[in-house]
């Protein structure tokens, strides 16, 4: 193509410039697996937080990760979401996206949402604004300058507000919410982003039994349309939601299966009884 033709191509009004079109690659889940983690190792000053960890999660699954404090659950999420670099191993989102090659923002835009262990919302903003900022879409500074909510996006926010039960708190400052409500808002923020995979770190910590029950309902209802990985200590809670449980111990997978299988697994019994003793 000669220069004038190229220039004409650039000046066409009916198309967006190719370099401005986001390179959104849909995640390929043709093998039903949405997350492949293989041989992952992370060490902090010689201490192995993750030690040759393997984990496969199916598309649409609700998976529970359990393990004692310090087992490496949060570190695993850190690696998947691009916060922590690993020493070795691989992490793939579907068959086609190498998670280790992306940063946090890119991974979020690929459709992986993450809830922190300590509920983190934008306290100076209202519940509504928190959700607005979480919506899927362009996250660049220039587009944010002129961004306005479309009707569709408002409907989306309304639906999320209903799902997380905060319809009546929409104009409250997020900082004024109760602890449990903040947890829900943060889950709502993930939902507003329409993710494929949700990583949820200790969602019921500090919740009342009733709140925990509602959270369990919420998470089970999300599975199917989304893939959900939940980290939790509360065995009661895990039992109420889990179909498959993965037990982490010292940075590696100790056992995997249904709750009953896992609880009768001799390795698990040994580790847990050993710790209890």
């Amino acid at each position, binding site marked *: 193509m000669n220069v004038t033709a190229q220039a004409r191509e650039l000046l066409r009004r009916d198309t967006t410039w190719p370099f401005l079109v986001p390179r959104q690659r849909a995640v390929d889940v043709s093998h039903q697996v949405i997350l492949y983690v293989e041989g992952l190792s992370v060490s902090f000053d010689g201490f192995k937080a993750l030690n040759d960890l393997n984990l496969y999660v199916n598309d649409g699954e609700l998976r529970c990760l359990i393990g004692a404090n310090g087992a490496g659950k949060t570190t695993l999420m850190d690696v998947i*979401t691009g*916060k922590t670099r690993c020493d070795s191993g691989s992490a793939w989102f579907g068959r086609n996206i190498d998670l280790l090659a992306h*940063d*946090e*923002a*890119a991974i*979020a*835009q690929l459709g992986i*949402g*993450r809830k*922190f262990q300590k509920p*983190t*919302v*934008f*306290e*100076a*903003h*209202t519940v*509504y*604004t928190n959700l*607005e*900022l*979480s919506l899927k879409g362009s*996250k*660049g*500074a220039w587009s*944010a*300058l*002129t*961004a*306005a*909510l479309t009707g569709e996006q*408002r409907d989306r926010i*309304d639906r999320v507000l209903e799902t997380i039960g905060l319809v*009546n*708190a*929409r*104009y*409250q*400052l997020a900082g*004024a919410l109760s602890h449990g409500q903040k947890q829900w808002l943060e889950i709502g*923020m993930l939902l507003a*982003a329409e993710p494929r995979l949700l990583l949820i770190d200790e969602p019921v910590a500090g919740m009342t039994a009733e709140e925990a029950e509602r959270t369990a309902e919420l998470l089970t209802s999300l599975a199917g349309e989304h893939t959900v990985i939940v980290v939790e200590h509360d065995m009661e809670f895990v039992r109420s939601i889990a179909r498959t449980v993965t037990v982490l111990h010292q940075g590696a997978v100790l056992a995997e299966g249904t709750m009953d299988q896992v609880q009768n697994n001799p390795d698990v019994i040994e580790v847990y009884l050993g710790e209890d003793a």
Partner: protein
Amino acid sequence: MTTVEHNRSLFGNLAGALAQLRAPGEGSSLLVAILLGVTLLMSAANLLLPAESPLYVSTYTITLMGKYLCFAMLAMAVDIVWGYCGILSLGHGAFFALGGYGMGMYLMRQIGDRGVYGNPDLPDFMVFLNWQELPWYWQGMDQFWFALLMALLVPGLLAFVFGWLAFRSRVTGVYLSIMTQALTYALMLAFFRNEMGFGGNNGLTDFKDMLGFDLQADGTRVALLMATALLLALTFVASRAIVQSRLGRVVVAIRDAEPRARFLGYRTEGYKVWLFVYSALVAAVAGMLYVPQVGIINPGEFSPLNSIEVVVWVAVGGRGTLYGAIVGALLVNYAKTRFTAVMPDGWLFALGTLFVVVTVLLPKGLAGLLQRGRTTDAETRGENNTGEVSAGDAPAEPITGEARA
């Protein structure tokens, strides 16, 4: 749901609806109106009234006011990054001074052969240093438009490079503040050197005229004040639009929970860099307006202490509200003028005391005091938890389901 809860959420929704009705904030428009009105009145009183009249405003006062307004603009620039994004810049004086030097270079070139040495091209200090020709970076600075461009470009570029390096490496908090101090300090040392070609420690001064108008004339002084007031109003309105846009909301989100924003897909360093550059440009404009009014620019403007003083103005006025920064700068500088007339050496102590008192007693500054008043009003009417939504410069609410229903 109990009745109390129900009432509370009902009032919450009401307050939200009210908040969007009163957007974009009548308080802010009031500030622009007062600013422009007072400037016009002062200008008229200076130009139209005889000097004997009790209402006459002296040219000294006009220039003093112009200087205060420049400081107000600088304070606003600092507030944009500090109050809204949590970037405590202790080096904004650098951008202010660079803008000032750009304007100073233009004014220097306007002197022409009226300098002591009568050299038509070289400013006096260069003749004094035995320089034979104008350094390359002084070329073109006799053109007003070019000088303006450079006075914006250089600080803007510096802010971009600095911000890009610092924010990309995720430097935050105290470390970032120290880096900004180092930046302005390094520039101060550089500008003190005669070989830099900016007049060494004397800086640039003895300006004669600007765009052909005599800088000593009352009319020019008044015009400069009016230009300053106008630009302050413009930058204020622009900044308000920015902080009320979604960009502004993202910026506040970054301030309060940067990792959360990142995991939602925002490249937070990009937001910070652009906000920092914008803020530096506003500071540079303030510096450009400052120099023709005070008649001098020297490396002292880069002094780290100057930048820290600006932070105190913002703290006093109330960070996180644009009008707070403006009011804070005006009040503290007025106090400074008064105070130094009585006790020239005591100012730094007074400033320090003021800072401590404000930090301890008024963490949100004077604007916080104002908001607290309003919140108490609201509470007596039965609104809960929503006081801050409707307060001051808080971002306007989006139009919501209720509003459309």
